[in-house]
């Protein structure tokens, strides 16, 4: 049944994830999709930036050049952001938060360069949510010990425990769905503009790109990292 809902004139609207090639693994067909390719491209860009930054920092000069200035700006900005929210716990989480910040930011704005943003695939954002979830609970057990965790679960009364468990499980799901749906809505809007208005879509979609890819992507990156930091700092606090 290949009968779409869209009008027949809009057959070239396309915002789905496509398979590039498939292979067999333990009797399962596994697809390499466009998401994998885009994640690889984003990773290569980040790795290239890291190698260049490493070289420039090793030969750092007293008066920084252009590239060293950029590297220092990025690192300082991330440090200030993490330090402002997490306070004394910031030292051990700077690397993690900085990494996911740069990864999500580059993924979100990769739509500008004609890629399909990897964060518009629920697999990617759900993995990020699971990472946050594991970090939260690892730190909860590390700082509050088992007794504190059980006490936190039975917060007002012990009968509240199931609701608290549901609240804990909802954290990664809502985090990942927020990021995913925001980026997906941008992808869908751009696909509609380019598919339906392809005859007149020449210069003005640039403004939409600025909103959906740059603005929305940056805000959602900030929100994701901010909420992750808040949850982790909350898990670290012992009463």
């Amino acid at each position: 049944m290949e009968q779409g809902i869209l009008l027949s004139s809009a057959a070239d609207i396309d915002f789905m994830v496509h398979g590039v090639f498939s292979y067999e693994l333990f009797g399962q067909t596994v697809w390499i999709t466009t998401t994998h390719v885009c994640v690889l491209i984003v990773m290569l860009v980040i790795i290239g930036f890291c190698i260049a930054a490493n070289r420039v920092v090793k030969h750092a000069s007293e008066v920084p050049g252009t590239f060293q200035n950029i590297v220092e700006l990025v690192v300082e900005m991330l440090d200030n952001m993490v330090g402002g929210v997490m306070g004394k716990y910031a030292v051990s989480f700077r690397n993690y938060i900085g990494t996911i910040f740069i990864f999500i930011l580059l993924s979100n704005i990769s739509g500008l360069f004609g890629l399909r943003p990897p964060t518009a695939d629920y697999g990617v954002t759900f993995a990020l949510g699971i990472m946050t979830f594991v970090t939260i609970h690892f730190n909860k057990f590390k700082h509050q010990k088992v007794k504190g965790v059980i006490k936190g679960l039975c917060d007002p009364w012990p009968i509240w425990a199931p609701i608290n468990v549901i609240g804990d499980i909802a954290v990664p799901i809502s985090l990942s769905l927020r990021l995913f749906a925001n980026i997906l809505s941008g992808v869908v809007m751009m696909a509609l503009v380019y598919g339906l208005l392809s005859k007149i879509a020449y210069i003005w979609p640039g403004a939409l790109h600025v909103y959906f890819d740059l603005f929305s992507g940056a805000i959602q990156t900030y929100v994701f990292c901010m909420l992750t930091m808040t949850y982790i700092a909350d898990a670290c606090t012992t009463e």
Partner: protein
Amino acid sequence: MEFNTNFILGCSAIGAGLAVIAGIGPGVGQGIAAGHAAAAVGRNPGAKSDVTSTMLLGQAVAETTGLYGLLIAMLLLFVKPLVP
């Protein structure tokens, strides 16, 4: 009871349209947040950048419920869970 596939697709489209009504809530919420932020900046223009970043963070979080509606609409339209 057998239903025609086209009938189910049409009903899915109506459901998707109804699901996107969820966008009213975040619209009102973001408007209230922006209004209060404007009032705060009017009272204390020095704190403009702080107020703006807090407002944007709150608005982005408040947007979530509307996005859930959008997701339901997307699922109904493109994944077609109701079509046998």
